[in-house]
């Protein structure tokens, strides 16, 4: 094996390099492949659509392909380094020649990537959606290993990880809250999204800072060929996307907006109790990009979104994210690709009242600024190295209250900000060894510091901290280091190809997380607090091991995969019973760090048969916690410990007019704590609860159906279509929670009441147009 590496290195190769694009609009195709026909020599376009194929000088039949696109064949004579950009046409556009190849480079059997899910927006759009809103995050909850604590719950849980353990990136900018209207809709407007990739394990060393997953969402660059647009009218919101060249083939823009309009209807109501309410959300996505010659590309992209809710003058709240990305891609030499990025991300919320002397304004925010430089070195075919450096500064402002009136009862209050700095370095190799082995391996190093100005409280007992027992306060001046942590995060993934288009893969990764979301509700809320590591709360840590088997027969009509994983967590923060989390300057006194364990099995199968496509996945997954000072120090189930989950997706294309979709999910109910007894206090019957999360809600199951209609007769340059949906088709009353109350007939008798967020079938119709 060693010998073969040396021989490879000694060959005098030249490189074919460039970008791979969509022929219709110039969008870069992430993950498209370039290979030499009839051989296993090939290259994959990176996250920016750039590829490098190293070859000895000669003439080659080159195949360029990408899922959903018609492969293209070229005969090229390559004598020296050649820059060549390829353009691919979408499938079904009347291409006569269709090349079937067994050497698809992005095939799961060939790469060492494990526990990775990739979804195209076109796939998502074919599936049933709640109220017709095409939703990225709801759809990934149908993937094996991904779940949620309940309908309308914010975020998603990956392999027994809390929602704050997902690194959600929009054009590389972290998004702190990925949901609208609590968790009913995600912040990603599907019309503005090009590609998304979810890493559940085997996370490459370029990513860090969150323990359980990376959801990498890339926005469309904008059509470089011609002006285009699309939009839609739905029950909840309407949306419009415009894109087009600024200078043809050189630069383009994309702008996409979405706004919900429940409040437009409520404003028409006669009853002032309804009329004077406000409830809406909106998003704005925008991106421009420029080709500055052959070697440089510049991108500027942003996201701006908000939820607004108000009830007369009495109460109002708003929360939202803002992100900005400035990205410069530079090709230093055909083999060295650079991506320099400046990132801004902000999440904030306000709660206020304009009610006379009780008026107040309460604000909270998180602010992140990152500068990073990533490089890809295409050493030779079968060996690339990514390496880079990043610097991040965070400001966590947990809360400030400003009274609205001079003589208000309420005092002004400012909780101290937490300011942190992070430096990180990484390298990551992707290497092929012989015909059978593929290796990904790398290392990430992060140095974290919490800096002043700030205060550290010294507790009488530093472990069982109690806010009534603060013995001293240490003050730190601006910029002074309050606490530092650093650590190495090794990552490795191995693929061994077996005969018959199958492979065995294994991976190990360690990750650190320096800020955790503190929530004592079943589902996270917009006002939950992100708490960075300090003297008492050490960075959370996970070690994950994965072993998998993948089978994709040549005919490509079906595939199956199975993965088992084991995760060991350290320093996960949990709250003590009865913790108070808001406006608590001594927050760490109500928190404890504990260990956790998650393990499971994921089996997935896909099959295409004629116009049918189906995907079936089963997940067995456990997630347990043990924390001194919580649940008497015994192990307990995490809130999202749902052992069994079965997901089924089916789509059927009847003809070019109609296609149909269905999804079905059945899962174990989430853990809850039920009462085991009651006692009397001042004539009230007060429940006594058993061990934390020792009971479960009833099982969850739901069927959704959809139909898409594209009328055959269309006006020129203007295509319209309809999407119809039935959510919760057989009207299952899934329990979001169970609570207890005295019976109406007999108040001394207590009864269990099931709260269902959707107790009935929810139909929807959406009108879509493209021009």
């Amino acid at each position: 094996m060693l010998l073969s590496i040396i021989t490879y290195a000694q060959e005098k190769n030249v490189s074919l390099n460039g970008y791979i694009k969509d022929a219709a609009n110039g969008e870069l195709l992430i993950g498209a492949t370039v290979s030499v026909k009839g051989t296993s020599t090939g290259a994959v376009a990176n996250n920016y659509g750039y590829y490098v194929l190293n070859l000895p000088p000669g003439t080659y039949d080159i195949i360029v392909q990408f899922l959903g696109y018609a492969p293209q064949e070229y005969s090229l004579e390559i004598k020296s380094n050649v820059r060549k950009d390829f353009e691919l046409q979408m499938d079904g556009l009347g291409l006569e020649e269709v090349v079937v190849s067994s050497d698809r480079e992005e095939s799961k059997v060939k790469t060492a990537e494990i526990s990775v899910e990739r979804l195209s927006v076109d796939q998502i759009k074919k599936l049933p959606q709640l109220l017709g809103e095409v939703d990225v995050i709801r759809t990934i909850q149908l993937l094996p290993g991904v779940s949620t604590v309940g309908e309308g719950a914010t975020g998603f849980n990956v392999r027994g990880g809390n929602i704050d353990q997902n690194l959600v990136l929009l054009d590389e900018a972290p998004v702190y809250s990925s949901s609208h209207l609590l968790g009913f809709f995600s912040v990603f407007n599907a019309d503005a999204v090009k590609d998304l990739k979810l890493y559940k394990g085997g996370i490459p060393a370029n990513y860090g800072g969150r323990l359980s997953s990376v959801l990498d969402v890339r926005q469309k660059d904008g059509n470089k060929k011609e002006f285009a647009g699309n939009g839609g009218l739905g029950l909840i919101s309407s949306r419009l996307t415009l894109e087009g060249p600024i200078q043809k083939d050189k630069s383009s823009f994309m702008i996409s907006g979405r706004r919900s309009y429940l409040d437009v209807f409520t404003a028409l109501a006669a009853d002032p109790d309804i009329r004077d309410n406000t409830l809406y959300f909106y998003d704005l996505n925008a991106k421009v990009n420029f080709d500055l010659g052959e070697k440089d590309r510049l991108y500027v992209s942003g996201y701006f979104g908000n939820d607004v809710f108000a009830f007369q003058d009495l109460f109002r709240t708003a929360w939202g994210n803002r992100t900005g990305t400035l990205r410069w891609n530079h090709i230093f030499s055909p083999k060295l690709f650079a991506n320099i990025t400046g990132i801004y991300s902000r999440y904030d919320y306000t709660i206020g009242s304009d009610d006379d002397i009780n008026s107040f304004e309460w604000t909270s925010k998180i602010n992140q600024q990152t500068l990073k430089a990533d490089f890809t070195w295409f050493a030779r075919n079968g060996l690339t190295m990514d390496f880079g450096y990043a610097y991040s500064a965070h400001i966590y402002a947990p809360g400030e209250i400003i009274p609205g009136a001079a003589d208000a009862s309420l005092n002004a209050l400012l909780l101290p900000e937490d300011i942190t700095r992070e430096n990180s370095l990484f390298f990551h190799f992707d290497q092929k060894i012989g015909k059978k082995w593929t290796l990904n391996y790398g290392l990430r190093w992060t140095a974290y510091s919490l800096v002043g100005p700030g205060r550290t409280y010294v507790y009488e007992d530093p472990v069982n901290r109690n806010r009534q027992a603060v013995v001293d306060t240490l003050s730190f001046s601006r910029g002074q280091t309050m606490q530092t942590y650093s650590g190495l995060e090794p990552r490795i993934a191995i693929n061994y190809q077996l005969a018959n288009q199958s492979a065995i893969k294994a991976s190990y990764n360690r990750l650190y997380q320096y800020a955790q979301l503190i929530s004592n509700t079943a589902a996270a809320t917009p006002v939950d607090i992100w708490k960075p590591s300090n003297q008492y709360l050490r960075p959370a840590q996970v070690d994950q091991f994965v072993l998998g088997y993948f089978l994709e027969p040549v005919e490509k009509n079906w595939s199956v995969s199975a993965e088992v994983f084991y995760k060991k967590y350290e320093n996960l923060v949990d709250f003590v019973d009865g913790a108070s989390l808001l406006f608590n300057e001594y927050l760490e006194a109500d928190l404890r760090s504990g260990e956790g364990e998650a393990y499971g099995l994921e089996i997935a199968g896909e099959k295409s048969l004629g116009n049918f496509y189906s995907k079936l996945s089963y997940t067995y997954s456990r997630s347990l916690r043990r924390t001194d000072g919580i649940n008497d120090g015994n192990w307990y189930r995490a809130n999202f410990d749902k052992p069994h989950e079965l997901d089924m997706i089916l789509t059927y294309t009847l003809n070019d007019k109609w296609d149909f979709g269905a999804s079905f999910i059945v899962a174990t109910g989430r853990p809850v704590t039920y009462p085991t007894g009651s006692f009397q206090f001042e004539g009230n019957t007060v429940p006594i609860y058993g061990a934390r999360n020792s009971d479960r809600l009833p099982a969850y199951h739901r069927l959704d159906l959809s139909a898409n209609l594209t009328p055959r007769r269309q006006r020129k340059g203007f295509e319209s279509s309809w999407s119809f949906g039935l959510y919760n088709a057989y009207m299952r009353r899934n329990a979001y929670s169970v609570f207890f109350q005295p019976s109406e007939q007999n108040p001394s008798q207590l009864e269990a009441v099931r709260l269902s967020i959707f107790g009935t079938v929810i139909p929807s119709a959406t009108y879509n147009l493209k021009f």
Partner: protein
Amino acid sequence: MRNIAFLFILLLLLSCSDVIELDLSEAPPSLVVEGEINNRDGRHIIKLSLSRPFFETDDFSHVTADQIRLYQNNQLVALYTDTDVVGEYQVNFRGNLINRYHVEIDLPNDFPLAELAGQTIISTQERIWPVPAIDQVNLEFRSNSIFSEEGYYLSLNMTDNPNRDDFYRWRVRVNGQRIGGLDGFIFTSDELFRGNELRNINMNDDPLEVGDTVLIEQMSITSGFYDYLSLVFEQLSRQGGFFETQPANARGNFSVKNSGDSPVILGYFNAAAIVRVEATIDPENFEVRTR
């Protein structure tokens, strides 16, 4: 917070709730003690009972003690005596401001819970903190809205002591009948209001009628009892919504004397200072009397 969740759900108009059958595991019974001492009343009651399985409908069973002792600043000051009711004991003693009180209870050898038979249990020390006067009582007529039914409502103003962490509770009697249930939980800490005048603290959620006589008690309570009330209130007001915290037990302030590893004892012995006012609902001539 619960209101926000409620309104979200209301606006979506899609949620529903229904009664379901549920099998719950049953915890063994625990001892429950409930008692108070204050600076106004001459006679105080302490009650001993057992907890019961959650869906049980029989009355809570009352249990007896051998002796109950009241201590002021760790000095024995009084013994509780029997009442006509099983499990209820009384003491004739008026508490004094700034002093600390606790009780010790000797349980009999034939006590129904084996782990407590023959044991002495002790409460934490509770201090009677001064309570400020009620500055003003406001009478307001409200018409029907989604927040309140049509009728009369009382609220009051008071001024917090700026030099101390204070915790307050209010108890209301309408025509001699104590407002109970969730509406009986009116309490706050001065955390966000330190040293200010608190205005329009609502005293009733159900409307009052002309002619009703209302007695309002304003109480200073301890931080421990405030935490306990918060937890009890939270457990009683669960509706299963998005903003609801996870259940937590209200543990109380009793333990077995001189034991590092006490079995769970529920209930609270608290100490409070009280000021009282009385008013009769009369929009023409609204008068407030100090009692």
